[in-house]
């Protein structure tokens, strides 16, 4: 299932609901929780930061592999090149006073999905997130 959103300004909610309503989504609520959170953090990142003035497009899709056990979510945009995997992980051992506010979204996505891969191809950022959905969580 795949869809192009253009423009994407203020469309985070709509894009997230489109992906979550895909027939590829597992029925298990625990898995859905983790997948939704990963989608929200990454979609929001593109909508807010990919295009300077937020006028731009984004193509999103879901896919199951032949086994039906591996769900892949793909986000594609033509905004400024940005590899979210380059962002340093937050230091989760710091005290509340020392912890900076923010910087948790992409870290959560990396922790909750099984694999997150970024590539820059033909002027586009392409982020793929994969989750094994065979086990209830």
């Amino acid at each position, binding site marked *: 299932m795949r869809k192009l959103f253009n423009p994407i300004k203020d469309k*985070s909610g709509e894009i997230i609901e489109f992906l979550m309503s895909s027939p590829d989504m597992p029925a298990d609520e625990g898995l859905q929780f983790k997948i939704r959170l990963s989608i929200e953090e990454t979609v929001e990142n593109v909508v807010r930061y990919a295009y300077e003035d937020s006028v731009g497009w984004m193509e999103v899709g879901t896919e199951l592999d032949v086994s039906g056990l591996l769900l892949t979510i793909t986000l594609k945009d033509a905004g400024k090149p940005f590899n979210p995997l380059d962002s340093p992980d937050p230091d989760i051992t710091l005290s509340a006073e020392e*912890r900076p506010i923010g910087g948790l979204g992409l870290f959560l996505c990396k922790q909750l999905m099984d694999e997150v891969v970024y590539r820059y191809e033909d002027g586009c950022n392409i982020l793929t997130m994969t989750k094994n959905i065979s086990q209830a969580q």
Partner: protein
Amino acid sequence: MEVTINQEANKTLVVLNGRIDTTNADKFQQDIAPLLQGEKPDIEIDCSGMEYTSSQGLRIFLMLQKSVMARQGQLVLMHIKPQVKEVFDITGFSNIIKII
């Protein structure tokens, strides 16, 4: 997302219901603004109705924790659902915010 705040003697009791996500995080921040005032606050938040939080919600919890500590107060999150607790665990927030 619904936030109910009740002041009882020296304790502030808060009940959260619903989801904190990108669409309503700004409203959540406004709703909890009263908790950012007063000396030595003693705040208990009932999270049993909180179904979800994204990083947008986490940043507001951290902001609240920092504010409470700066005022020599205390903040406790109660009855947090396991899935939401996992988000607090992964990000290390379980170590910096008291959860019972």
